[in-house]
């Protein structure tokens, strides 16, 4: 089940020894890891031993000459790090000798930083402001990733009225294809992205042509169609499980350089991913507002019967929306697979966050989905400042329910849509 592919532990050695382990120390380029820096005042502590345990895994590491230590762990989960006080050099004491065990949860972030302060307390540690900024950047990154998939849901819901519970599987599909192309066939990431997008588009076309168009022909009700998507989601998920197994793997991009952005240290791949998301989202926005097909899409969303009466080929628009939605979601799957790993259930795990984003922004509004996704991304990351990390998704869903209570049409939705 190990999710490590050629992890390069050397990257950790580039850290400046510092008494304040910021929330953003360098990360091992792949996989899950736990690590940190131990320093006594300004002096790095060499040879201190830390025992990392959890999820059936156990390993002891020692800090290097810069006081840096990092352990690659096999999978996500909860790990405890225990400092061996006897291994500390003469004259170095933990600041709080009773507190030498730390628990870190690797659930949605691959790397955890563990801090063992030494000596007298002289500094205040990481400033709150730095942590907030780091979380903000991660939140925007996550939100943009969600937005790509959420716009797909929103477009499909807007034009057909269908709540697609199999939408997460479109995301998993994209991630699995690009993992197969990069890791198994050894393609470059760009070629893999291009082919994945084509495959995702074809998959979306197939959804419409093979399943949902015939259902519309039969005049199958919306609730029935929604239950069909539930069945479809079960089928696809278990097909993925049968092919891929229960492991979690990461898509390799080759962009592992660490780039400092303010107080946060981001991997180059994060920045590239954010840039791709923004460019694609702007392109979708221009498509919807400037092109004839885009305008027709919004017309069908507003009122399909009226759009049909004014000469718009509604079936064609729905087909285009399925292809476009699946392509965007496939792209989201690639980005998600780079940061949080590819697994058979990845799409299903964030499906509700996507629904939350779409509902928050206003059902059926593509721009609302973008706003909702950014909010959900920020809420999940910022909530970890006060709440345990394993509740971050719960916080996002509670926000969803609160918004529905106060403003049922969503942030950008219109009153008449709530029915």
């Amino acid at each position, binding site marked *: 089940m190990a999710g490590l592919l050629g992890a390069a532990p050397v990257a950790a050695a580039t850290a400046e020894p510092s008494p304040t382990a910021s929330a953003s120390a360098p990360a091992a380029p792949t996989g899950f890891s736990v690590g940190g820096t131990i320093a006594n005042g300004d002096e790095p502590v060499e040879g201190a031993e830390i025992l990392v345990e959890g999820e059936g895994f156990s390993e002891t590491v020692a800090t290097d000459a810069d006081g840096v230590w990092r352990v690659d762990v096999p999978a996500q989960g909860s790990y405890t790090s225990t400092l061996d006080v006897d291994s500390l050099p003469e004259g170095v004491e933990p600041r709080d000798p009773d507190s030498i065990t730390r628990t870190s949860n690797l659930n949605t972030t691959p790397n955890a930083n563990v801090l063992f302060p030494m000596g007298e307390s002289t500094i205040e540690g990481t400033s709150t402001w730095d942590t907030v900024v780091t979380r903000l950047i991660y939140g925007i990154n996550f939100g943009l990733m969600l937005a790509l998939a959420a716009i797909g849901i929103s477009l499909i819901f807007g034009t057909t009225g269908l709540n697609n519970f199999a939408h997460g599987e479109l995301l998993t599909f994209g991630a699995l294809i690009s993992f197969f192309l990069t890791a198994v066939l050894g393609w470059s990431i760009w070629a893999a992205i291009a082919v994945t997008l084509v495959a995702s588009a074809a998959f979306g076309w197939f959804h419409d042509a093979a399943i949902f168009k015939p259902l519309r022909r039969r005049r199958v009700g919306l*609730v029935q169609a929604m*239950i069909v998507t539930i069945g479809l989601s*079960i089928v696809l998920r*278990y097909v993925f499980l*049968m092919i891929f197994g229960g492991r979690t793997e990461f898509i390799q991009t080759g962009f592992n350089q660490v780039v400092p952005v303010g107080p946060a240290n981001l991997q180059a791949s994060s920045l590239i991913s954010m840039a791709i998301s923004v460019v694609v989202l702007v392109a979708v926005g221009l498509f919807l507002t400037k092109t004839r097909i885009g305008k027709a899409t919004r017309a069908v969303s507003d009122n399909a019967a009226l759009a049909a009466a004014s000469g718009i080929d509604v079936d064609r628009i729905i087909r285009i929306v399925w292809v476009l939605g699946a392509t965007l979601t496939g792209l989201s799957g690639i980005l998600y697979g780079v940061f949080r790993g590819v697994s058979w259930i990845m799409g*299903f795990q964030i499906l509700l966050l996507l629904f939350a984003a779409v509902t928050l922004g206003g059902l059926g509004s593509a721009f609302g989905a973008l706003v909702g996704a950014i909010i959900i991304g920020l809420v999940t990351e910022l909530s970890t400042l006060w709440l345990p990390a394993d509740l971050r998704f719960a916080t996002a869903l509670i926000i969803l*329910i609160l918004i529905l*209570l106060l403003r049922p049409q969503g942030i950008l939705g219109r009153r008449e849509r709530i029915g």
Partner: protein
Amino acid sequence: MDFLFVINQALGVALSPTTAAYALAAIGIGVHFGYAGLLNFGQAGFMAIGAYAFGITTLSLDFPFPLAFLSAIVASVVFALILGIPTLRLRADYLAIVTIAAAEIVRYIVSTTGLSSVTGGASGLSAFARSFQSFNPLPGGSYGFGPWTYSRAEFWVFLWGWGLVAIATVIVWLLMRSPWGRVVKGIREDEDAVRSLGKNVYAYKMQALVLGGVFGSLAGVIFILPRAIQPTNYATTLTFFTWTILLLGGAATVFGPIIGSMIFWVLLVLTEGVIGGLVRADVITFLDTTQAGQIRFVLLGLALILLVVFRPQGIFGNKKELSFNV
């Protein structure tokens, strides 16, 4: 392959307490969806609420069985009110999203490490059935025959499980013939028409939500009596399985959920036995034994799709009784 063993297993599961628990949960969404037209996709949440209310009050507060049982009911009523107040005035598919989200919130909260002293965190709770068994009046020995042979403790769970299913069935049958049931079915068909008759639609929907939720919560209690509480059991998939059971039997029918649950479990066990047996006997070579277990769920999803498209009223249902329009 030992056909007799597989058939014996399948017959045994048809009357197992787990089948009773799924049937009870399906009766609950039968009240929600089949009669009142409410899209509750959070039945797993109600089951989790029931299971944890029962487990926590027994283990942390030392409640005797009847009190713990009552706490499960009270907790699900409160949960239904919390869910219903913001959503029952909205369109039906909002309720679907909110209920599914609420069920996931419950699952995240009971599995968070911060609360593990109460909920057991990711490892869940166990050893809460002692008080339940201390109320067992049965003399020792074994009960039943053939594939349905139970020990004294198992038979006590069996009696409670199927007893609750029977009580719930009678309640639903009586209610749906009553004036209350006619109003609720009227809401399913045309909410505005019922409102124009001066009925408080919101209150009726809320009552239906609470009733079905209590059935879901008791299903959660029955489900855990023969096993431990595992937070991962209460994922969205559980809700989807209860929906499959309901649609299989027929949504607006009295016996549909019970028969649906039996067919569901018998088929799951039969297909596992047959496909697994064929794989082990090297008749099927393109699957390994793990995949043989997984392919059942692919078939299950396919069955759900075909069922809802070609026979949405289920095995026993009447197509006129079923409204799929939101």
